[in-house]
């Protein structure tokens, strides 16, 4: 039990379970799932579906953070990807056809690739600090998205496109399936190849990594491209869900949620060791919190404060100092921690 509690994922998982239980207490049907018209329904499904864009972006963010970086531009990439795909569909001669939808998806992903290459170029080749480099696109990106949409909200009506964010396949929402696929892809890509270890090496000690012959430039480039592509797919989901592109509000502040998910999940902002599973748990915690606010009927004006309290608690529970304080309150004084656990 004790060693289980020491596992780096222990506290995030406990926090998530506690939140879900809390909901179950207030709404006894909370955890139940039901089948209707061949689709699975229930609060858990809602949480996963609504959290899908955040999870996607947080997965990309995890790898970026593991290299000691950060990507603030993901929200802007969401807006650009949505704007580009919707603008294409709206302008195409056959705005309802599946081919148009597929092309729109392709355009969004290519836009993500290009934006990721730009971020990676600034960070790895020019050597701009990640926070500054991605701030450029964070600010400029919304402008680009507005240029694409001409300052308007572009509404589209294309059923295949709509299904990305709102459709079902094999009883499950397609957005959940896409997210699961990206998660598996990321896990396989980093752990079946040496990419994961090399990302961690660069994040832990860049100097030693260089002297060991590691081309950190390529590694850093890969993570920024991956992050932007994740953001582009999230942008597709968000715009598809509302069948419209909103350059101003799509993915607004989503970078903050993503960073938070990474941190709650147990990956240190200082870089190095990362956990994709932890990030997914972290994103679920954030999304469940939002649901909890509705379940408990917390007034909207204190919602943010409530969220902040939960997040701070989870982060503190992972900090060695706070844990020691806690255990010294519980039992006889136990001195300093020997193992540093990343917050």
């Amino acid at each position: 039990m004790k060693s289980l509690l020491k596992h780096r994922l222990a506290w995030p998982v406990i926090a998530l379970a506690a939140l879900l239980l809390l909901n179950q207490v207030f709404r006894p049907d909370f955890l139940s799932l039901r089948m209707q018209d061949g689709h699975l329904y229930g609060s858990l499904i809602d949480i996963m579906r609504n959290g899908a864009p955040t999870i996607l972006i947080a997965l990309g963010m995890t790898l970026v953070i593991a290299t000691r970086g950060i990507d603030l531009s993901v929200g802007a990439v969401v807006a650009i990807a949505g704007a580009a795909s919707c603008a294409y569909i709206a302008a195409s001669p056959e705005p309802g056809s599946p081919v148009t939808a597929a092309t729109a998806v392709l355009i969004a992903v290519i836009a993500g690739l290009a934006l990721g290459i730009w971020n990676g170029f600034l960070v790895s080749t020019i050597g701009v600090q990640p926070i500054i480099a991605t701030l450029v696109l964070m600010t400029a990106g919304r402008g680009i998205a507005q240029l694409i949409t001409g300052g308007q909200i572009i509404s589209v009506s294309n059923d295949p496109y709509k299904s990305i964010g709102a459709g079902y396949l094999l009883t499950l929402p397609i957005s959940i399936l896409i997210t699961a696929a990206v998660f598996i892809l990321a896990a396989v890509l980093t752990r079946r190849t040496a990419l994961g270890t090399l990302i961690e090496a660069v994040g832990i000690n860049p100097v030693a990594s260089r002297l060991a012959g590691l081309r950190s430039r390529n590694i850093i480039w890969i993570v920024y491209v991956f992050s932007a592509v994740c953001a582009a797919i999230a942008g597709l989901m968000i715009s598809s869900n509302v069948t419209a592109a909103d350059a101003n509000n799509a993915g607004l502040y989503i970078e903050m949620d993503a960073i938070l998910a990474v941190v709650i999940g147990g990956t240190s902002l200082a870089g190095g060791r990362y956990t994709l599973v932890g990030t997914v748990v972290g994103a679920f915690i954030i999304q469940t919190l939002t649901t909890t606010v509705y379940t408990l009927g917390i007034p909207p004006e204190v919602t943010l404060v409530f969220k902040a309290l939960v997040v701070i608690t989870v982060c503190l529970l992972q900090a060695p100092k706070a844990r020691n304080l806690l255990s010294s309150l519980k039992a006889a004084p136990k001195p300093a921690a020997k193992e540093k656990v990343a917050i």
Partner: protein
Amino acid sequence: MVPVVEMTDIAIGFPGVKALDGVNFRLFPGEVHALMGENGAGKSTLIKALTGVYSIDSGTVTVLGEHKQFSTPAASQAAGISTVYQEVNLCPNLTVEENVLLGREPRRRGSIDWKGVRSRTREVLAELHLDQVDPGSLLSSHSIAVQQLIAIARSVEINAKVLILDEPTSSLDADEVNQLFRVIRDLRDRGVAILFVSHFLEQVYDISDRMTVLRNGKLVGEYMTRDLSRMGLISKMIGREMEALAELDQAPARTRARTDSGVTPFLETRGLGRKGSVSHVDLSVYPGEVVGLAGLLGAGRTEIARLIFGADKADEGSMAIKGASQRIRSPRTAIDLRIGFCSEDRKEEGLIGDLSVRDNLVLAMQASKGWARRIPRRVQDELVAEYIQALDVRPANPDALIRNLSGGNQQKVLLARWLVTHPELLILDEPTRGIDIGAKTQIQKLVSQLAADGMSILFISSELEEVLRVSDRIAVIKDRAMVADINNDDVSVEDVMTVIAGGAQ
């Protein structure tokens, strides 16, 4: 006499490592007590337990008869225990007086009384015969030796009852060591208990009154220095019998590599240099040859190694590998040309601390394969097991985090990182610094053996004896340039010193 510090039955464990197990330790006032043991024996851990950096799993600590449980370094300091580390941990950008009195400045009506600070600092410095140091000068303007003495001045100022000196002499020259020892004896005579840790046996015999020997996290015993011979001490440290020791101590016997005409050197540099760093390096290393770089600390040895490895870019001169002219712009280029480089700064430039021994060991090999072609786990396991055994890495656990290993064992893993890539030239910068005798001899033997197998080795060390023992040829570096190239035929330390002192050949 009552001990100032008494530690009884101390145990500390880390994931995968039992660092200390049932260790007793006493420290008496007015004595210099040396803590001896190989790397990984548990010296640093014991010190960190005493200074509150690590918490102990079991056992008791008493200071002046009082039970203590230090949970922070501050608690330990408050109990009168003061530590001066190998790397001086003061603030280089503050003045001497600010450093000496940091956090305890005399005050007058709420603000710092700078006159008081100045006079108090002068007093303390005078006690340590450091009158020549200006209290208002920046700490960073002084040599490491003086900085270390200033760190000691700080503990004198707080009236420390226990002073811990962890490898204080590793970057000092002989005169500086004498100055430090004068201060240590002074403090001892005033009743301060001094815990002294050093790898230099002669210094330990020179300064210490009593010693405690640790091995593999266990207590071997406590001895009066005058009762224990050097050989006796060494055999207690490494836990082997005298005969085995004598064999270990032998200079590795091997025939010196021939560098006859007709053979192409693996590496040849002509006038290699870099602005503001080193210049005029004409160095050649033949296959199967060990070339030693001799010179004082700061003479430019490491800089030369970094130029050859591409860690820094050369901007003058030329370099040829196997006769073909090459421009090495990055470590990666060097590695592709089959060159390996073990940096002198293990922690900053070698280790990936939070990764396992396994990941660290295969890192260079994996890096040159690229991220997409992961070395299969089975191959990794075989390699790691092979090298852990061959180099006697302890603990022999591939999954242990490398930062939890002792310095000597970390060094072995870093060596193995290069050996698995089968380099043709291996540059070793201070491979035996801060390492115990056992590991040191192992590494020296390994170097000779690698060269006998045909590898070229560039061997850098501050210890001239060591350079002479392993090298076929010696390049002498002075004042950031190469001044001589000597064949190592019965060359003595004095000969090399003469060259360093005299300049030209």
